[in-house]
């Protein structure tokens, strides 16, 4: 103790790839490499202390995000990547898959191509003034208040509710209490949200999205009365891991203010190669021979 990353034990090529390329050339981790190097860290001689002291011991409220599906996302039955909201396409981290650059690049290109095709077909369409007015009222609401609670308090309030009620110990009674708490926050505190400048307004809207996501996470947790090792999801009231009947995706949808739970079998996308070719006739083979 503590645990160290043993860079000196690595073959030089592996060390250069891990420290120099993987961390050193990724946008937001390059600063880490440069700062360590400038402070005298030498990966050929020095072992790097694990950031969490002991490898694998992260905070109990964290769930592994590495497993495909562990953090949820938009499931689309549509090989065009269109969601159930007509005209809205899903891509990248919104999909239930590992959030890597390769996923972002490939799905972004794919969904973008499909969305552009669709936009070309349907044209600009008519603008619903009513919808615009409703959305404007929602987005600008915090600037109409000059006191109440600010976005940080809202954010911390939601976080604390999730740590209490949808964290290490998951069980139905805690989920229900969590939903009650979030509903109270929504009804009692969100109308008091204030933003004094555009920055605070932006942060307020992010916090409102976080509140909606928190509600979705608890609803989805309630809908799965089974623990799963693959989802890093452990319920006290249903401790058996991965019972066969729960080997499936659950979907969550808001319909007329009510949460509607659906399901999809694993592998609902069918044969990847056949489906890709069937839905991309204009595109298959574009790069052949290049």
């Amino acid at each position: 103790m503590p645990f160290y990353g043993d860079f000196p034990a690595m073959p030089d090529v592996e060390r250069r790839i891990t420290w120099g390329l993987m961390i050193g050339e990724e946008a937001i981790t390059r600063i880490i490499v440069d700062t360590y190097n400038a402070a005298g860290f030498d990966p050929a001689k020095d072992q790097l202390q694990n950031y969490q002291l002991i490898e694998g011991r992260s905070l109990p409220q964290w769930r592994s995000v590495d497993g495909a599906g562990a953090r949820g996302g938009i499931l689309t039955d549509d090989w065009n990547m269109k969601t159930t909201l007509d005209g809205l396409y899903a891509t990248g981290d919104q999909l239930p898959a590992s959030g890597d650059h390769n996923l972002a690049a490939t799905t972004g290109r794919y969904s973008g191509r499909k969305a552009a095709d669709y936009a070309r077909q349907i044209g600009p369409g008519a603008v619903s003034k009513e919808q615009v007015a409703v959305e404007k009222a929602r987005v600008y609401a915090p600037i109409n208040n000059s006191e109440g609670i600010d976005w940080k308090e809202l954010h911390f309030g939601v976080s604390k509710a999730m740590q209490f009620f949808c964290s290490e110990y998951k069980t139905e009674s805690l989920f229900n209490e969590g939903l009650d708490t979030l509903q109270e926050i929504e009804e009692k505190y969100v109308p008091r949200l204030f933003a004094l400048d555009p920055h605070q307004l932006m942060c307020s809207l992010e916090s409102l999205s976080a509140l909606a996501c928190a509600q979705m996470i608890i609803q989805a947790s309630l809908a799965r009365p089974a623990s799963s090792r693959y989802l890093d999801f452990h319920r006290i009231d249903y401790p058996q891991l991965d019972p066969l009947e729960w080997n499936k995706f659950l979907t969550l949808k808001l319909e007329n203010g009510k949460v509607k739970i659906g399901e999809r079998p694993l592998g609902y996308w069918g044969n990847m190669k056949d489906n890709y070719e069937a839905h991309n006739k204009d595109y298959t083979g574009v790069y052949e021979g290049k």
Partner: protein
Amino acid sequence: MAKDRVYALPNVTTPSRPVIFTDKCKGCNLCVEVCPVDVYIPHPEKGKAPIILHPDECWYCGSCVYACNIPGAIEFNWPLQQRGYWKNKATGKVSRA
């Protein structure tokens, strides 16, 4: 008996210095533009280093440091609790960033 003046100020947010601008900064505001969380605002006086308005919201991504065209104008400044440790494998000496 001499009277002391005592002042009280609102809490300073912490960590308060995610970066340090040196006198080499020409106030071009490129860092203001690239910051993904809008930590900075331009200085009202032209040519002066931006104001760090929301220091506690910094993600320490380093975008501002790499966007800067003037070497040494902006220095990254990790807060104390985020500075990691390492150990020299041969000597066992522990150091910190």
